[in-house]
């Protein structure tokens, strides 16, 4: 069995298994905790509307905060959108999903994907630099932050290297790229990458809690 066979077969199956298992584990582990009902008299009905509002209200900082964190948000968006575009609109990636879901969709030319991936990688390095240089971020960072950065950046770097065929053997490069993605999947449920789920839960929770009070969140 070559490395590529391993990456396309058993490694992928193991990674997907751990990915799915871990996500359910962590979500259910929190949701199955007790929650005391709030007995206070709500100021207004329809707290869930506030919850929905909370989902997009925090998509961009409130005006007074823009000068402080606006740039950080932009870098964040570049990373997230870049990840999204490369993941879903790169042809090989789309075909990967198509094999699982059974239908195909429109994709972007390889050159565009390469460019987006490059920009995203640069944004990732900017984010890392900020984490290392900014006193606040450096203080509050832990292993998870750097590990998350690493497993997120690795697929971009290996993917770009494979596209540019910088490896001695293309199939080894492809295998390493695949394995780097499986590493991401395996790490995903156990680190802060889970924020892709928590951000919805957390924003909705706070939004609805404070809408109930009439306050601001």
């Amino acid at each position, binding site marked *: 069995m070559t490395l590529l066979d391993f990456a396309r077969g058993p490694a992928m199956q193991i990674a997907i298994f751990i990915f799915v298992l871990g996500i359910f*584990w*962590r979500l259910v582990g929190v949701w199955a905790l007790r929650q005391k009902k709030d*007995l206070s008299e709500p100021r207004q009905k329809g707290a869930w509307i506030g919850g929905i509002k909370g989902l997009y209200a925090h998509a961009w900082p409130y005006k007074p905060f823009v000068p402080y964190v606006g740039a950080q948000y932009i870098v964040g968006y570049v990373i997230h959108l870049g990840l999204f575009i490369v993941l879903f609109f790169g042809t090989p990636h789309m075909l990967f999903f198509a094999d699982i879901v059974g239908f195909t969709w429109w994709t972007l030319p390889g050159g565009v994907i390469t460019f987006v991936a490059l920009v995203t990688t640069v944004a990732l390095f900017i984010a890392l630099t900020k984490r290392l240089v900014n006193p606040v971020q450096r203080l509050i960072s832990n292993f998870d932050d750097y590990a998350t950065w690493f497993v997120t950046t690795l697929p971009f770097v290996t993917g770009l290297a494979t596209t540019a065929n910088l490896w001695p053997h293309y199939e080894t490069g492809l295998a390493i790229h695949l394995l780097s993605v499986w590493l991401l999947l395996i790490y995903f449920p156990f680190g802060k990458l889970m924020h892709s789920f928590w951000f919805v839960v957390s924003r909705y929770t706070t939004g609805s809690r404070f809408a109930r009070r009439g306050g601001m969140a």
Partner: protein
Amino acid sequence: MSKTTTEMALDLEAKRLSVVEPGTRVDLQGEMSDEERVEKAMTNFAKDFGRVTATYMEACIHCGACAHACPFYEASGNPRHTPIWKLEPFKQAYKREAGPLAFFYKAFNLKKNVTLDELKEWQELLYDTCTMCGRCTLICPMSIDIATLVGMARHGMFHAGLVPHELYTVTEKAQREGSPLGATPQVFEDRVEWMGDEHEVDMHMNEDEAEVLVLMSSIEIQKYPESMAATAKILNQMGKSWTYRTDGYEATNFGLLSGNTAWQKEMSMKVIATAEKIGAKLVILPECGHAYQALRWQGANMYGKPLPFKVQHISEFLADAVDSGSLKLKTVNSTVAFHDPCQISRRGGATSAPRKVLEALGVKLIESKSGGSMNTCCGGGGGVITIHRADTLRYKVMGAKFRQLGETGAEMMVTSCSNCRQNFDDSGEKLNWDKQMNSLLELVADNLVEEAKK
């Protein structure tokens, strides 16, 4: 714990000679072994973890944005004052003891056990530099309610005997005497009577039955007694059936501020029982932020069922009164900047009430930058104002607040929280502020259109 002075940096910007971080003193209560303290902190912290708070603990991405919403970080520039960092040991404890991956973390010791030294270090972060104003939640991309988590962390700190002495002392006093600042029932009764005479207002004290029960905070009783007269004047004018009660008058809840849930419940229950006894349909809270939080939003949860009466902050009551036309006000010719108390506006939801009242007064309200529900905290709430070693930073926070209010160019400063007001008075004196913070309630009382008595 104390270092020698040579190890400490001098703060040359301070008005008097001082050191940069006088907060290295750590207070301990009770006789306990180190292990016992840590154990108590952890268990009392983990005890109340529910789905909501666990979600918050899971959601943080360590982006550090919260620092920029925090008045203490903005004043000190010290990364330790980043809101989420104030929870660090407790986040560790959550992940190690209560989270879904706790087994994992514990088995491989990935999250270290919290140490007493860490808890001691965090005393300053959890008490001196956080008013639980919740502004950090606004900037948080994950919308994490850090203030609530700090409140939970304080539960652990209290039971481990790790509360700053001043806060502990007033809390213990409140528990023993019924009031943190020596406003015993007797003192309260005397001062109400005094104010009644002084302002020639009919005071209703210890009525057996009344529709409205009025509470006062000990800050008002002791420092701003005019509030008691002002409230009475307005209620009399409206012809309400109301009363003060010596068995349930204290609105502040230091059980909540210090982190003792049992005491918080006792303090709230005293008021709830009194209101029930006299058949009150409405409990009016004085100009006090945490009081609103304690009774309006946490009261029912302490009681264990919905409260049989309505709870209003005085500004809400006044807003309803001017709305319904039962209260007529004279026009005040002035420009006003309003300082929103965090617990009433952002975290309480009564942001529009004082604005309605100010509109009825005919003043021109000039909103400050980042005003209303996004208001910057004065830095004195959450018990911070009681802690002496927190003074230096508190004044710095207030310096920024003064600048912000000054930028509005308004002639008159108004707020609806006597704790904020106390902080403005104290810091104003210290920093030579050229303005005075006024009470919304007193402003209304001074400008009533007095109709002929029936």
